[in-house]
C-alpha cells in the first residue's frame, strides 16, 4: 500500500524542501521504501539539499516526456537505504507537468513498491503546486508563525479541499497535518510571535510537529545532508519526532516551551 504525501505551504521559504528532505530520509531510515519528488520545475533544489546534485542525469520531465525511463531518473541515496530522489527539471517550460504524465509516473512508482511518495511542492498556487497536490492522499502543510505564511497556508487548505483528484472524484478528503517551522519559544513568550496554539486555532488542522528555529538547518543544507542525519541537533530531534508521529507512534510535542537554561549556561551560551 503506497501513500502519496504532498509537502506544501503556498508561501515560499518556509521550509518545504527542508521538510521533504528530512521526512523522506527519516521514513526511509525506518525501512520504508521512499521516494522524494521535486515538483519545482525550473527551480529544482531538493537535489542540492539532499546532496545529490552532481548525480542528476535525467529528471522528472524527461520521464513524463518518455525521454528516459523512471529507473534512469531515480537517484538512489548513498547514505540511507530505501531512499530515492526524483529531481525536477530545469526547463522553463511552465506546462512541462500535466496530470496524465504525473499520474503515470506516480502509478509506476507505486508498482515499483514505493511505500511513501513524498511530493515537494513549489511555492505559489500555480500549476506546479497544483500538480504536486493533485494525486495526494495526505498533505503536510508547512507554516511559519508569521502572518503571510498562515494566510497562504489557509489558501492552500482551500485548494487541497477543492482542486485535487480526491476532491474531484468525490473520494475521502485528503488528510492534512500542520508542521510549524522556524518556531522561537522565546519570542512567543515575549508576545512577539504567534504561538502554536494561535496557529492551530486559525488553521484548524491537527498538529504534526513543531520545528524550532535553528542554525542546524542552514548548516545541513550547506553540507547537502538532511539535518535528521545528525541526531545531536534540536532540529534532527524535532524531525525524528515528526517522522515517528507520522508513522503512528505517540510522541509528546517538544520545542514548544522555552528551554530552561542555567545562569552559567546563559552567560556562556
Amino acid at each position, binding site marked *: 500500500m503506497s501513500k502519496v504525501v504532498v509537502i506544501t505551504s503556498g508561501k515560499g521559504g518556509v521550509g518545504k524542501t527542508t521538510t521533504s528532505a528530512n521526512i523522506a530520509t527519516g521514513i526511509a531510515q525506518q525501512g520504508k521504501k521512499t521516494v522524494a519528488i521535486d515538483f519545482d520545475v525550473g527551480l529544482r533544489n531538493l537535489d542540492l539539499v539532499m546532496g545529490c546534485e552532481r548525480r542528476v542525469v535525467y529528471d522528472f520531465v524527461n520521464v513524463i516526456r518518455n525521454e528516459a525511463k523512471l529507473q534512469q531518473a531515480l537517484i538512489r541515496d548513498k547514505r540511507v537505504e530505501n531512499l530515492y530522489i526524483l529531481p525536477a527539471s530545469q526547463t522553463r517550460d511552465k506546462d512541462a507537468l500535466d496530470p496524465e504524465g504525473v499520474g503515470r509516473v506516480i502509478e509506476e512508482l507505486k508498482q515499483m513498491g514505493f511505500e511513501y511518495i513524498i511530493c515537494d511542492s513549489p511555492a505559489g498556487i500555480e500549476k506546479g503546486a497544483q500538480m504536486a497536490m493533485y494525486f495526494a492522499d495526505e498533505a503536510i502543510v508547512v507554516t511559519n508563525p508569521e502572518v503571510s505564511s498562515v*494566510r497562504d497556508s*489557509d489558501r492552500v487548505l482551500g485548494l487541497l479541499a477543492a482542486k485535487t483528484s480526491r476532491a474531484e472524484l468525490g473520494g475521502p478528503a485528503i488528510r492534512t497535518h500542520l508542521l510549524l517551522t522556524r518556531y522561537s519559544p522565546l519570542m512567543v513568550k515575549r*508576545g512577539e510571535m*504567534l*504561538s502554536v496554539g494561535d496557529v492551530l486555532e486559525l488553521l484548524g488542522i491537527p498538529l504534526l510537529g513543531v520545528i524550532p528555529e535553528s542554525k542546524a538547518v542552514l548548516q545541513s543544507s550547506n553540507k547537502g545532508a538532511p539535518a535528521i542525519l545528525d541526531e545531536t541537533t534540536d532540529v534532527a530531534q524535532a524531525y525524528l519526532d515528526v517522522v515517528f508521529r507520522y508513522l503512528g507512534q505517540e510522541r509528546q510535542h517538544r520545542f514548544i516551551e522555552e528551554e530552561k537554561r542555567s545562569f552559567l549556561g546563559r552567560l556562556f551560551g
Partner: protein
Amino acid sequence: MAFFDYFKRAPKSASLAKDRLSIIVARERAGTRSGPDYLPALQQELLAVIARYETIDLANVTVNLDKSGGCEVLELNIVLPDSPPPPPPRLSQTVSV
C-alpha cells in the same frame, strides 16, 4: 514623558497578528470556500440598503462570517457617523433675500 511611557504596555505584536489574521482568514474562507456563493453579493446589497438611510464610510463597515459550534453567524458591524452638524443659522438667508 518618555520615562513613564516605558511602563505603558503597548499591545504585543503577536496578538495583533492573531486578530488581523482571524479577520482576513475568515473573510477569505467566506469568499472562497465553506461559505455560500451569494455572500459577497449579500454584503454589497446590505451595504447599499444601509447607505440609503445613513451616510456611512465603507472603512467603518466590517462583515464577518463566523462559525461557532454548529451554527454560522453573519456579523455586520457598522460604525455610524457622529450626529449630523446643526443646521446653518437662518441669518444668511434673510440677508440674501
